[in-house]
């Protein structure tokens, strides 16, 4: 189930500690045009936190326009460049203001659409030596040609443009939108950029776009991958935004509150007594404290129980589901990946530093916890595949 539906269905359970969504919403309430970066691993619940941020800002600020955006719906995030977030805000404002009859509004809408989506321009080439006549109307150069030139939009992969003209148009349109609707704050929450593997592009986007967006008086939250914390750009990110939040996996082995939180999630979603207590504990352990894995293993265990014709989810169902889950995590691993994982499993490696180690962390084969102490472990569902005695 996607996070939006889960929240809508009442499945959201308050985290044991102050959620990163609360921290961001609280800071935005104090400084609405501030910029925030929310980092976290795959399946750690970043989208849920972003959606909760939206809810909390709406409850803290009375006259705010808050919008959640999945960037991948607007553009190919694999080839993203600076200016994209500004362009997306521009297009959204253009859509909201499309029925306006005001000349300034329509002028800015046209500029934004052209620069964001691209446009064709007819250009007349003047014969060499006759350019001084070009300004004379109705002079026509008989040897001139009309060439059609295509200008790719900022949202297209071949662009790579950072346009001041676009920033001016979006700023003006934003002011008009704000005044017309009497919004005191405008905040955009950008999801989907955590899939961006290229930290350099992500870094440019964060530095340029968030600065420009903030200068328009717009608050902004962007979701990014854990990778950003491990590369040479970490300092750049920390300096480029007002707040850097981290959505960590929960150490369900060493943190009682975290374990109780996962128990509450399962209790909230399953009918009473459907999940046997031993089975529930096993699911939580093998989730590794990763929210999506908790849900995934539970759903697969339900499939196993259904196929067995049992009316309760029991330990043997979980064991089958965890076996499949662990085997899936083995797929695509090289010999050297397995060596690294074994080093982590045996405590010879403690934190990822090489590119290969970071990749294993990003892909959820290694899990990093921040509390109660920072530590990294091999995903518990994968561990028995590497060291059978570790079960």
């Amino acid at each position, binding site marked *: 189930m996607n996070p939006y539906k889960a929240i809508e269905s009442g499945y959201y359970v308050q985290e044991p500690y102050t959620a990163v969504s609360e921290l961001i919403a609280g800071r935005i309430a104090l400084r609405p045009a501030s910029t925030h970066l929310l980092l976290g691993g795959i399946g750690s619940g970043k989208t849920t936190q972003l959606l909760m941020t939206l809810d909390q800002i709406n409850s803290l600020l009375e006259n705010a326009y808050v919008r959640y955006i999945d960037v*991948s719906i607007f553009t190919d995030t694999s080839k993203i460049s600076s200016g994209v977030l500004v362009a997306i805000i521009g297009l959204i404002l253009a859509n909201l203001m499309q029925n306006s009859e005001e000349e300034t509004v329509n002028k800015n809408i046209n500029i934004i659409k052209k620069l964001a989506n691209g446009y064709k321009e007819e250009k007349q080439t003047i014969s060499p030596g006759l350019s001084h006549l070009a300004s004379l109307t109705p002079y026509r150069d008989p040897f001139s040609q009309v060439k059609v030139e295509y200008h790719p939009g900022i949202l297209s992969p071949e662009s790579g443009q950072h346009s001041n003209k676009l920033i001016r148009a979006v700023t003006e349109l934003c002011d008009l939108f704000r005044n017309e609707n009497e919004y005191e704050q405008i905040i955009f929450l950008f999801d989907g950029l955590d899939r961006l593997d290229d930290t350099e592009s992500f870094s440019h986007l964060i530095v340029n776009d968030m600065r420009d967006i903030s200068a328009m008086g717009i608050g902004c939250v962007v979701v990014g991958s854990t990778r950003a914390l491990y590369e040479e750009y970490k300092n750049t990110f920390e300096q480029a935004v007002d707040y850097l939040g981290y959505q960590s996996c929960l150490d369900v082995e060493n943190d009682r509150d975290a374990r109780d939180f996962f128990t509450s999630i399962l209790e909230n979603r399953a009918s009473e007594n459907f999940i046997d207590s031993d089975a529930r504990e096993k699911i939580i352990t093998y989730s590794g404290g990763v929210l999506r894995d908790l849900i*995934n293993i539970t759903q697969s265990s339900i499939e196993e129980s259904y196929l067995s014709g049992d009316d309760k989810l029991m330990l043997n169902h979980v064991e089958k589901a965890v076996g*499949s889950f662990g085997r899936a995590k083995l797929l695509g691993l090289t010999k050297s990946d397995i060596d690294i994982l074994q080093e982590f499993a045996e405590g010879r490696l403690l934190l990822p530093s090489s590119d290969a180690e970071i990749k294993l962390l990003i892909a959820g084969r290694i899990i990093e916890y921040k509390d109660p102490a920072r530590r990294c472990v091999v995903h518990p569902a994968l561990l028995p595949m590497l060291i059978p005695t570790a079960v």
Partner: protein
Amino acid sequence: MKITVDELLPRIRVQTEGNTWSVIIVDDQDLVNAVEELAASIEIFLECKIQSIDVSSAKIQFILEIESDTDYLLLWNFSNWTNTDWQELDYMRSSLDKGKRGGMLILSQSAVEKMSSYAPNFSSWVGGRIFQMILGAEFLTTEESQSRLETLREWAGQSDMEIIELAEAHQLSSEPEYGEWLILLGRGDLIGH
């Protein structure tokens, strides 16, 4: 996990919460047969609109081919997908979440390894739902059929004969369990009767 079509179908039916994805591994020479078999069986079993898309030529642009009323997607023929294609699928995965049921990728062993390496976000959606398809053994063993029928009888509190009579009288509930029941009894002809 090795699985037959008959074992796979009840699993898919339990996946009611939407946007759930499975991966089926088949040998390249069995690909077309597997797709046809799965498309036909899932459509009957789930009673929903299936769209089957060969992704070999459009690559990630297959997303544009998804019809708005599709309930369940069957994506296949990934053999020429490069690492970059898989990365693009990973970036664009939100476009696959249409708020309905999810779907299935039918892949070779080498393609599923590429998926695991280059589409980690999408792979985390799939989780452990990766199955090796056994073709040509679509039917459960007699023992397995009897066990499943027993489960269905207990669940409904009805006999096989009662189910057939209800189906013939057009009074059988449209719940998918009854469809499965009729198939196990060799009376798939009565589905939708």
